[in-house]
């Protein structure tokens, strides 16, 4: 008998194995949940990994205060429906407490400030494992990540000196004050995520599907007009049919023109897309070639 296992089944099994390793080997794990599609899939996998028991760890949202309201509504309804505990780490509170200083100027964003809020929350709650939904296909520095990625007492990543990760024997040992970032979705691609969302009928925030929205063009990207982001001089506002390929801070996440209003449409669109998801939608990666590596070294997601 051949029993060929499909690639999505193989990926699901691998992720579930990782999630169970984390629950078994760490004292205070936490799963990062933003309401974005990758974290929604990760939470879905976590529910499956421990079924029929409850999730043996809480989820945490690093809230920039600049999120799309649809996403926050979705976050809260998911947490209630799935019966999980939510910890909110607030960038606004970090600003109020003087831990970070708000950026100014037309491209001001709270994206980078999240790192301090995240690291403070990890310290405050004594989290020893932090699970994130980052994928290796997203970005070239992320392509270098291990499943279990060691962070020192400053939350720093040292990409030149990573622990060898052989077979699926993960080494999560660390000293007090250090922690491990875990990436259960490392081997998933954007298309895998969408196919899985379709197969499993996973619900997402509505902004992932085509809708009408007021936008303006900045650096070639379509930015939504929100309470946190207003057009500058000469940036003309117009209504367009758009959707989001990634969901992050409203100040640095762009929409793409799209009429894909169902999951099938989205899959067709993603499969045919000639631009990476971050390239199409993230202003934060455009600053320099190594922007992601630099942020990750400091302790970013």
């Amino acid at each position, binding site marked *: 008998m051949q029993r060929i296992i499909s690639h999505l089944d193989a990926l699901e099994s691998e992720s579930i194995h990782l999630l169970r390793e984390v629950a078994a080997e760490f004292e205070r794990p936490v799963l990062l949940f933003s309401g974005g599609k990758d974290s929604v899939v990760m939470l879905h996998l976590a529910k499956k990994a421990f079924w029929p028991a409850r999730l043996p760890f809480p989820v945490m949202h690093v809230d920039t205060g600049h999120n799309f309201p649809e996403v926050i509504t979705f976050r809260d309804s998911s947490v209630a429906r799935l019966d999980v505990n939510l910890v909110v780490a607030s960038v606004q509170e970090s600003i109020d407490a003087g831990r970070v200083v708000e950026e100014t100027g037309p491209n001001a964003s709270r994206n980078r400030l999240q790192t301090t809020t995240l690291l403070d929350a990890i310290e405050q709650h004594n989290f020893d494992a932090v699970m994130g939904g980052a994928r290796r296909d997203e970005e070239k520095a992320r392509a270098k990540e291990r499943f279990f990625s060691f962070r020192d007492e400053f939350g720093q990543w040292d990409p030149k000196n990573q622990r060898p990760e052989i077979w699926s024997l993960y*080494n999560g040992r660390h000293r007090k004050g250090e922690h491990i970032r875990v990436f259960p979705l490392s081997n998933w691609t954007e298309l895998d995520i969408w196919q899985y969302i379709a197969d499993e009928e996973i619900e997402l925030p509505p902004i992932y599907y085509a809708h009408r929205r007021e936008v303006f063009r900045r650096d070639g990207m379509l930015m939504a007009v929100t309470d946190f982001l207003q057009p500058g001089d000469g940036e003309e506002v117009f209504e367009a049919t758009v959707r989001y390929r990634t969901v992050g801070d409203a100040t640095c996440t762009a929409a793409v023109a799209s009429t894909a209003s169902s999951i099938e449409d989205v899959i067709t669109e993603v499969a045919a897309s000639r631009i990476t998801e971050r390239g199409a939608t993230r202003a934060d990666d455009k600053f320099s070639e190594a922007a992601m590596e630099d942020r990750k070294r400091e302790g970013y997601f």
Partner: protein
Amino acid sequence: MELLRFATAGSVDDGKSTLIGRLLYDSKQIFEDTLEALEHTTMLRGEEGMNLALLTDGLRAEREQGITIDVAYRYFATPRRKFIIADTPGHVQYTRNMVTGASTADMALILVDARKGIIEQSRRHAFLASLLGVPHLVLCINKMDLVDYDQEVFERIKAEFKEFAAKLDVRDLQFIPMSALNGDNVVDRSANMPWYEGTSLLHLLEEVHIASDRNLIDCRFPVQYVIRPRDDKHHDYRGYAGQVASGSYKVGDDVVVLPSGFTSTIASIDTADGPVEEAVPPMSVTIRLTDNLDVSRGDMICRPNNQPHISQDVEAMLCWFGERAQLQPGVKYALKQTSKWARALVKDLHYRLDVNTLHRDEDATSLSLNEIGRVTLRTTAPLFSDDYRRNRATGSFILVDEASNDTVAAGMIV
């Protein structure tokens, strides 16, 4: 669609990163913004055209030095298969990262520069791939464009490598002449080498038979986590969660739980999608037994008539990765095998292996970074293991330095 994992290996500058860039480029898997960034960087570096190697060399230090330091993972799919590629470094100094990439690979591609032929790194990587039990090995004789696509060069290198490989345990070995830079025999068969009768690399990747590489005979289920909901609805639920390491489990099978030796029967094999009749590798499932036994993480569920070795004395081949310290007999380490941690004392180093000549140095007293040797370990608790050659999942372990928490060795039980 089936998933195939492969790793590239070979010496520095033999063209590993270029080959991956070529595979992605020719199978139209590179996105436009990535290409633009690539052209831009190539131009800034004062080079011409597009340096495909920059696709996988993603770290600042790698781009600055023009070398691969750590494994980079890349993904692509054709209508037939989905591929996970581990692009590994060629420098001897980074051998441990090559081992990382190859440990889970179904196939290893070893690149050789046609002008240079088989060199020490080719032998080292071929040996490591065979030691790591990678089922399929392809020797890619690259840069054929620089030797006028000469068949004699190809045949000479092939013969030399075959002689070396005869000393190794390689199940499936293939040879492809190619030019990664120009794309000859990468995606399509090359018109420049009409004398070559084999297939292109991509064709091989799509067609190689891997489903039977799994061990479906020896039933090994390391218990990873015990699921006990303790709520009203599932008050008495007690399931043993884990990933099937090998063999095939069916509802109704008689099983034995190690180390207790108690026997029981599989009552159900659960997943969140509902129960399944059968579980095979690499499925993650939850097994329930008909009897109430004491089972915890690190235990193993097997069949009574086919059990692993149960022993505190372990014979193994060890690849040493420690930078700060050497392996020396008498030292203790933390050891992880399947879902189990134990402590291990290095009782004896029998020999150190010269991977170039396969000569055994029995006078060796230590192993340094990237050296390989045969050891005897004594563990604090018995391991449930099989020979690595028979079972990659239960025959493998890592050693961790108890002071620094670094992973210092990969072990293969013999």
